[in-house]
Each structure stands twice: as C-alpha cells, then as structure tokens.
C-alpha cells in the first residue's frame, strides 16, 4: 500500500532519505511547471523548485502534519515565486499577448498527440498552446497562481485558499475574475472549440434519432 505524503515526510523526519526521493519524483514535474508559469523562465523555475525541495528537506525535523503536504509545499513555492519577482533577482518579462513564443522551443513535451496527420495541425496546435501560455502568464500573480493550482494541480478551494492565504469566498471571486480575463483573451480559441464540439453533439443527436 502506497504511503501518504504525510507519512513519507514523517519517514524523512525519522531519517529515511529514500522517502524524500519518492517525494522528489512525485512532485518535481508539477512543481517545476507551476513555477515555470509563475516566473516565466525555465532556468529560474528549476532553480526555485530545487530551493523548494531543499527547504522541505531542511524543515523535516520540525515537520508536523498539521496541513496537507501539498498545501505546505506549494505555499513555499508560491512565496518563493512571488518574492523572486519582487526582489528582481530574476529576469522579469513583460509578456504581451502578441509576443512570439520564446520559452518553449521544440515540440511541447507532454502534449496529447494529434491523431490527424500533417505538419499544419502541429503548427496550429503549437500556436494555440503559445497563445494560452501567454494569456495565463499575463494574469496578475495571485490570479495566475489561483488558476494554476485550480486548473492544473486540481486542488480544492480550501487548499488553494490555504496556499494563497485568503478566504474561500475571496478565492472563488479571484478565480472568476481570472477565468473571465482568460475567456476574453482566448475568445477565438474558445469559439473554435465550441464550433468543434457542436458538430459532434449534433451528430450524436442524429445517431440517437436514427
């Protein structure tokens, strides 16, 4: 039976470094992605993610399972990301919705493969991904963090509110404003998706009638 994150952390506290290795493997990708979207630079994101793991390891002796492990870890990550930008230690990018992509060279790593053949579809998919990335990265920091934790980490409201240190009702309003901004910014992509989904729905209805 797999050990919970809290149990793994308690094992690290007891001196079992192999449990820390398990936590590293489990959370390196979500953490690097979260920080990447927060600071908009892959090298900085990796540097900060290393710092998060280091702080988790340093805090092992004083660790007490009062909150979910992910809440604690992502709170460290969020604070580091916000502080790094405020300190100006890292490159600050003014992202425009029309700015060409510069961060993700090469094909996207874990993109769902497009079953339709042809380079044209790949280019379209990449262009869409670039627009989404720029729209997300253009959000104000707190809204961006809320969207990343809600949409990509699939956390519950109480957990996100704990990380961002706000009330649940404030978080829900924050998420609404963020998604409203994205809805406007990404309106063409939303419309394309609606157009793509309609024929499927119509054909499904047609199949049901026949």
């Amino acid at each position, binding site marked *: 039976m797999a050990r919970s994150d809290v149990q793994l952390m308690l094992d690290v506290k007891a001196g079992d*470094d192999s449990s*820390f290795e398990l936590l*590293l*493997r489990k959370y*390196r*990708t979500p953490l*690097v*992605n979260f920080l*990447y979207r927060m600071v908009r630079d*892959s090298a900085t994101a*990796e540097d900060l*993610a*290393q710092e998060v*793991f*280091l702080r988790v*390891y*340093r805090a092992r*002796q004083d660790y007490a399972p009062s909150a979910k492990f992910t809440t604690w870890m992502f709170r460290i990550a969020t604070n580091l990301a916000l502080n790094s930008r405020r300190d100006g230690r890292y490159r600050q990018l003014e992202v425009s919705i029309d700015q060409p992509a510069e961060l*993700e060279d090469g094909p*996207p*790593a*874990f*993109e769902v493969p497009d079953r339709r053949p042809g380079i044209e579809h790949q280019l379209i*998919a990449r262009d*869409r*991904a670039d627009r*989404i*990335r720029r729209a*997300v990265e253009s959000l104000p920091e707190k809204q961006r963090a809320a*969207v990343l934790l*809600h*949409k*990509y980490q699939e956390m*519950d*409201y109480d957990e996100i509110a704990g990380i961002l240190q706000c009330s649940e*009702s404030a978080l*829900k*309003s924050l*998420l*609404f*404003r963020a*998604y*409203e901004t*994205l*809805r406007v910014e*990404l309106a063409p*992509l*939303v419309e394309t*998706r*609606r157009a793509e*989904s309609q024929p499927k729905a119509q054909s499904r209805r047609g199949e049901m009638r026949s």
Partner: protein
Amino acid sequence: MNCEQLQETLVAYLDIKAKPSERRQVAAHLAECAACRVRAEQFRLLWGVLDELPMVPPSPAFDAAVRARVAQEPRRTSFWNWARPAPRLAFAAAALVVLSLWLSSSVPPARQQVATAQQGSEAEFRMIKDLPVLEDYDVLADFDALSDLSAPPQAGSQLEHPQM
C-alpha cells in the same frame, strides 16, 4: 441571485462543488439570464482550451541537482542520539549476551543442585537421629559387629584369631 452575486459561485457550480442551496440559486439565475448562461458555457469551453497547454518536464539534471544540494545539508543530530549505541558497539554487546547465555546453559541445571542438597540434608538427619546410640559406650563395647573385623595383617600371625 443577480449577475454580480454569480461571480462568487459560478466556478464552484461548474466544478460541481457548490452547496445544494447555491446550486439551485445559480441554476435559477442561468435559466433567466442569457448573458450569464453564455458566460457559463464559455467557461466550460475555456477549461477545455486550457488543457491544451503542455506540461514541461524538468531537465534531466534536475534530480541530480536537488540530491547534490540536499547532500550538502548538515545532518542534524537529535538530543537523544547519545543514547543510541553505535552499530559496532551494539553488535559487540549483543554477541556478549549470546555468549553469556550459551555458557550458562552448559553448567548443571538448578533443579539438580536442589536434589543434591536434599540428599545431603537427609543423610545428616539420619546421623543426628543415631547420635545417642553412637555415643553410648555400653552399646559399643558389646557391639559384636566390631569383633568380626579382621586385624591388620601381620607377619607370622596370619592363622591366629584375635581375642577381644
């Protein structure tokens, strides 16, 4: 519920995490407000669009960098660590205990020692019981059994019977 109040509950409604009472209020508002109905539908579509953003894997050197930084951390020792024996010392102590147990098993069991002590005390008791007889000289003088004892062998008198 009006359009402004919807802001706090729409995301939870679409997540299917709204409370039942909130859910009913949102559904009632969406039924009568076309603008919010369109917005709610576009939020759903937007979430599908956001799924198109690819995940970025950490670089191959990421794990090694974390391990290297963790390895540089000082290993803090607990206050109670002094009570924990070093592995070699613990092994030596355990070996000593095993050896002691093995040696103690090779001596006679305690039950045998008790039996020997009981036999000794019975012989002593019999001697004490017969002590008045043994100290009575009249009895000893007529004790025929003593006359049957043969004299120590001497040269030239081996055929004579000693007279008491």
